């Protein structure tokens, strides 16, 4: 019996992002579609950044999670269009990022506040960070550095 697509989305929402494990691959907005083609389950995944090394790990994790649920025939398709945007991050994902200490993306191009002390006196250190999707910022009040999930 083929599980319903809604149920599959629920399973995928339990697959953590390998770099930022507090959010799921669904929160991140990189799972673009789930559909049955006969007995094969097709999952469309879009990369965040084109060279992000987590992309292949994510595909593997998705496949493992689905196999654990008894899905045997799985095809992971990479889809680059439309290109991934941080607008696809879920509200749940944004809240979890901030709790974890990563300021969520904003259209204004910088974090609203420090994720540690909530001060709005924040300063950019570098537009690039520990993963392609993050920039480095610093709080001028609590003096802690923090990651900002940059807007693309």
């Amino acid at each position, binding site marked *: 019996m083929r599980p319903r697509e809604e149920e599959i989305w629920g399973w995928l929402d339990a697959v953590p992002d390998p770099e930022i494990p507090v959010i799921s691959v669904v929160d991140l907005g990189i799972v673009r579609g789930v559909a049955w083609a006969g007995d094969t389950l097709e999952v469309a995944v879009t*990369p965040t*950044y*084109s060279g*992000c090394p987590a992309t292949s790990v994510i595909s593997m994790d998705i496949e493992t999670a689905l196999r654990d649920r008894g899905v045997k025939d799985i095809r992971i398709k990479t889809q*680059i269009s439309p*290109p991934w945007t941080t607008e696809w991050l879920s509200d749940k994902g944004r809240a979890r990022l901030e709790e974890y200490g990563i300021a969520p993306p904003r259209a204004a191009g910088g974090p609203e506040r420090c994720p540690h002390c909530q001060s709005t006196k924040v300063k950019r250190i*570098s*537009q690039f960070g520990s993963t*392609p999707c993050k920039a*480095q910022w610093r709080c001028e009040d609590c003096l802690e550095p923090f990651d900002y999930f940059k807007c693309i």
Partner: protein
Amino acid sequence: MSVSSDQLFEFLCRMGDNTLVLGHRVSEWCGHAPVLEEDIALANTALDLIGQTQMWLGLAAEVEGKGRSADDLAMLRDVWDFRNVLLVEQPNGDFGQTLMRQFLFDAWHLAMLKALMQSSEPRIAEIAAKAIKEVQYHVERSADTVIGLGDGTSESHRRMQAALDLLYPYVGEMFVPDALDDLMAEAGIAPDLAALRGGYDAHVGQVMAEATLTLPEGGFAHKGGKSGFQHSEHLGHMLTQMQWMQRAYPGASW
């Protein structure tokens, strides 16, 4: 106007070899940059460029239809098959020279990708739309750094002027169309390269003015990279590093 698969392959190799060769060059900085933040920024830029290479050369391999992969094209072709412009294969030099090369390329790359988003070939438009988001960050950083170092100390200013004098003669090749470029423009696949020059000159001129740097006079342009006719001696040396693993242990994977 129809374009043969050979011609399209050639064009895609130009795009993919630019990002591959520059991506490898920039990756040479990994673990060597002057400060940690710059090391991370360089490694991230290299990673984006290699990711873009996978898309361009992946499509090139598909268009070619001979069963080769993006990896085969990157790791098993020799110097004369590479189609990158000469600018990107130039050695890193010091940190300032690396960022000058980056800015001169990024400013072209941004304009080119913007135009390619309108390509009549939808797969090219898709890759351009993906890549441009990353390149906007590249050019923002390389322009800031060129300004910071150019308008910095007398030592950093001197080095940035020397880098500009050295690299500027490689800019022309990106804008002088050859027969293949003309064909791509006629087919609506790629823009008329010469038409991108005005916007580029305005962008570069504004950044150099802020950086207190002077553009060299004269229009001399080194050529021969994108046609594959004559690469500089640096590319072969770079390939001995980049391709070493696949040459020594053919088919090695993990």
